[in-house]
């Protein structure tokens, strides 16, 4: 391990909340122009470490050295002056302002302290865009941009005050493969220009091909710092969850006789979907891959009755599926939505109320309800799915990502479903909970129910699905059993160049 001077040293960082030691004697360092990966389960102390670095939390003990000089970071301005900037997972942009206004938010160039100097700002922004070959319209309102473009605005914002270190928290969570690829390109270019990156992600393959070094945290302690060559999946996972993840052999399950059958015939919508036809059988997990905007979520929404479709027939065990979400639910079809925070749960309500939200018709015959039954049902689910929450009465906003997703799943497990549609099951969830969720989905399928999983995570698709459907631009491109498929087969298929054409 070469010992030349590093840009950032965090030594003996210690941080405790009442009753729990969150960071215990953590050393963390980032070199000049280095992409440093940071991995760890939710609750391993990762976000607390970043919050100390960016001045949101003061550390109990420990020192921070930037560029050889010890610094005190009490607030955002200290962090900015040390050249540290953060891009959070939910981007902090102002939707109604333009790209330039967002880039310079908080650091405007002014003519005489009050008036904005729009010309100077445009010039500076243009410079930055050219330097990094971004393709973005500086005058567009941010609300009209795609997530990928918004991320570019965030990066421009950090580059503006020539940040030495840019911290990216789960940047590729809502990007498709193409956009992730261009983000990696950007990161490599920033690295070349000498900017260091702290890259936080749950996706091991991104860390593998990007990071120069990787720090792994568990339960507030550094479990190891690996250089690029030492990063292998099994080792990292072991460091992260303290035990080996049993490598299930990806056996392909056949449909169980008597399981329900979901048939979709040439489903089309005006703006995107075009004659989508496929069949999903109980007992099998059908994975749906493809790029963002290829129509996967829209397909689920049409099945579940949230989106109008102009033509096409959807039947479950021969019975046509209604087009109103309420009746679809009664026909035994459930949807675990893409964005659990906004679409999945009512954050202000308790876990018990959220779980009951979809099950009142099952739990109570008349419209009269008793809180006792709601709490009992919730306790059953909490035990069954091992949801980490003090009691059923805790509000959902206080739960971690993994536990929130379990609550969303619990909403549907109570009902005797025929079909469970799942959209991006494990976005932003730590590895441990991921495995549990896969287990839950598998157990549902084993009960003869149809399980359809949409995911942008190629590894995930390969791991859990028995058959994979690839959508490209609203059309069914490929429908192949998951036998001996590899990541690049899917990547190629998703971008519409499948093996068949090549041969």
């Amino acid at each position, binding site marked *: 391990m070469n010992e030349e001077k590093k840009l950032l040293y965090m030594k003996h960082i210690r941080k405790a909340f*009442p009753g*729990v030691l969150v960071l215990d004697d953590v050393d963390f360092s980032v070199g000049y122009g280095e992409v440093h990966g940071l991995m760890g389960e939710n609750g391993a102390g990762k976000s607390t470490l970043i919050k100390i670095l960016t001045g949101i939390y003061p550390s109990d003990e420990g020192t921070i050295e930037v560029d050889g000089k010890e610094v005190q970071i009490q607030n955002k301005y200290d962090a900015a002056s040390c050249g540290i900037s953060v891009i959070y997972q939910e981007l902090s942009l102002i939707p109604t302002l333009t790209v330039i206004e967002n880039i310079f938010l908080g650091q405007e160039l002014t003519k005489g302290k009050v008036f904005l100097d729009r010309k100077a700002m445009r010039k500076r922004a243009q410079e930055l865009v050219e330097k990094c070959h971004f393709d973005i319209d500086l005058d567009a309102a941010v609300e009209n941009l795609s997530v990928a473009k918004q991320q570019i605005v965030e990066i421009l914002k950090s580059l503006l005050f020539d940040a030495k270190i840019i911290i990216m928290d789960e940047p590729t969570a809502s990007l498709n493969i193409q956009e992730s690829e261009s983000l990696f390109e950007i990161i490599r270019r920033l690295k070349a220009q000498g900017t260091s990156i702290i890259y936080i992600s749950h996706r091991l393959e991104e860390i593998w091909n990007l990071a120069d070094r990787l720090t792994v945290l568990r339960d507030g302690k550094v479990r190891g710092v690996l250089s690029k060559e030492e990063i292998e999946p099994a080792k990292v996972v072991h460091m992260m969850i303290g035990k080996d993840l049993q490598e299930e052999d990806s056996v392909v399950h056949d449909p169980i006789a008597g399981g329900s059958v979901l048939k979709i015939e040439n489903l089309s919508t005006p703006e995107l979907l075009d004659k989508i036809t496929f069949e999903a059988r109980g007992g099998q997990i059908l994975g749906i891959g493809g790029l963002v905007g290829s129509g996967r979520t829209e397909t689920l929404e049409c099945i579940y009755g949230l989106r109008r479709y102009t033509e096409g027939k959807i039947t479950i065990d021969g019975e046509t599926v209604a087009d109103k979400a309420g009746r679809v639910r009664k026909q035994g079809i459930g949807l675990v939505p893409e964005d659990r925070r906004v679409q*999945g749960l009512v954050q*202000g*309500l308790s876990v018990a109320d959220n779980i009951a939200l979809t099950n009142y018709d099952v739990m109570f015959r008349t419209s009269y309800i008793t809180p006792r039954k709601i709490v009992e049902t919730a306790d059953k689910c909490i035990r069954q799915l091992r949801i*980490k929450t003090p009691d059923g009465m805790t509000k959902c906003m*206080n739960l971690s990502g993994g536990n929130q997703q379990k609550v969303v799943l619990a909403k549907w497990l109570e009902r005797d479903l025929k079909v469970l549609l799942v959209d991006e099951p494990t976005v932003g969830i730590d590895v441990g909970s991921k495995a549990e969720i896969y287990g839950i989905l598998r157990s549902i399928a084993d009960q003869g129910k149809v399980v359809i999983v949409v995911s942008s995570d190629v590894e995930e698709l390969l791991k859990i699905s028995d058959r994979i459907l690839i959508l490209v631009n609203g059309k069914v491109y490929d429908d192949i059993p998951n036998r001996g498929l590899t990541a690049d087969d899917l990547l190629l298929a998703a971008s519409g160049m499948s093996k068949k054409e090549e041969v």
Partner: protein
Amino acid sequence: MKHLRKISYQKPLMLLALIVIATLLNRSFLSISNIISILLAVCIYGVMACGTIFPLLNGGIDLSIGSIAALSGSVMVLVTIHFGYTPAGTMMGILAGIAAGAVCGLINGLVSYYFLVPSFVVTLAMKNIILGVAQHITHQNTIICLESKVMNWIGTGKIAGVPFLIWSFVLMFIVVWFVLNRTKYGKYTYATGGNETATRYSGINSRMIGISAFVISGCTAAISGILLSCFNRQAVATQASGYDGNVLVMLVVGGVSMAGGEGNITGVLFGMSLVGIINNAMLLMGVDSIYQDMIQGILIVIAVALDYFSRKRSIAVQTKKMEAKAA
């Protein structure tokens, strides 16, 4: 697993303090007749609040309840007179009045939810429109109706010494408490108010919940307008004009949040009694009418601020606990 429903002790304490001060200053404050007089003064506000809590819980607001009360009262009196003051005629009047309120509520709901116009603007505009309609049907006159026995009984009748109006509030309160806490509709209302998208994704028709909330608000406003006309034995287009502001204050002081999804009907008891006691106590203490509005404004601020701090402290405690567990 027993769950302890956390009861904040601020509100009852503040009420107690006010009662003690008022009693010290004027012994007859705590007399039975005065308590009944206070309740009588606020019970019509209470009936209205029981309905208007629904739009508030859905994250909306209803400023048109004052005009709806005036319109329904006038419709009821006109229909009663038309049918010659017979009890059946009065019943017809009451039904017509409630129907008018329901229609106004439906319009409020439809425009808010189908045209996505903020309910503040919709109900503000409807307040003017309904007032115009009420003035039109009453030709801006006061329509008196002294001969209808049913109206007089509703207005001044007593059961066990307590005026029927107070009983009507008690009945309405129990019904709304039951709907909000013990029925699916109540749970759906809290869910839609908290997060409309998530509720829709759970297969619940959140738009219907929203529209029906305004219909309920319209009906209860109509009922309170009818009770008011029975109490006054007359109807005029400008009656209950200031009610929407006071009802809003009672609900917010009672802990209903303006953002929706939070607050319970029990809070209205506190809001009502606070406003009722303040007005009554000020008069008994000889506070000049000039200062009364101002003092009410100041006490509203104190009540709502107290609520905020107690909630902030409880959230802080809860998040600390969660953080310790999660980190």
